[in-house]
């Protein structure tokens, strides 16, 4: 392999296609979920430890910051799962072309946006 090939791997100087943005967001959302799992486990422990803790947790979740946390968490989870489904569809051969990839990327963004809106609506209602 020639070592003197002209390469440009500085991502900040490259105009990225939409598929790259869905990919990087998939990674970022995954890292957030890894950290968020701590909060989920903590919540599960609290909710099961006693009735008083259960009610305290319920109260926390009903404050404005609790509601925003639930909305943010479910939005991130929704995006990650939708982008994951896109991968699974591509694994079985759906949307592997350039055009198909771009369509699937935009579909993922649109569905994740709708899911996020639906969660907000559900929490407010």
């Amino acid at each position, binding site marked *: 392999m020639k070592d003197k090939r002209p390469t440009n791997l500085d991502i900040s100087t490259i105009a990225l296609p939409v598929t790259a943005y869905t990919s990087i967001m998939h990674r970022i959302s995954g*890292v957030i979920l890894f950290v968020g799992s701590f909060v989920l486990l903590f919540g599960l422990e609290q*909710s*099961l430890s006693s*009735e008083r803790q259960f009610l305290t947790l319920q109260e926390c979740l009903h404050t404005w910051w609790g509601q925003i946390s639930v909305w943010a968490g479910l939005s991130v989870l929704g995006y990650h799962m939708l982008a*994951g489904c896109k991968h699974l569809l591509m*694994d079985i051969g759906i949307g592997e072309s350039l055009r198909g990839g771009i369509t699937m990327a935009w579909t993922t963004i649109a569905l994740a946006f709708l899911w996020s809106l639906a969660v907000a609506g559900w929490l407010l209602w």
Partner: protein
Amino acid sequence: MVKTVTNWGRNGVADWLTQRLSALILLSYAVVMIGWIAMNPNMDYHQWKNCFSSTPLKIYTLLALLSLTLHAWIGLWSVSTDYITVRLMGNKATLLRLLFQGVCATILVAYVIWGILILWA
């Protein structure tokens, strides 16, 4: 080149398959749990506690937690071998990457142990 001694299955296909299988378990768990909680907005402590003391839900939750550990490991491993590299960060990258992977692996195994303690407390 990054030597693949830290990835899960020691080869890419095993990692690929593990990531997909664990994804399906996590997807089903998330859909079932979110659906269950959303459909029972007035659930009280005793209903909640009862469900989590049934064996099927304990197994399902532990299965999801084990899947989370494998799935997150493969994901975080990919992220660390892509960005914490000598090309991007210089010679300190190798040590930094191993440190990052060590911390992540420890936390992920701790999640499973914590989950077992919560479920079988």
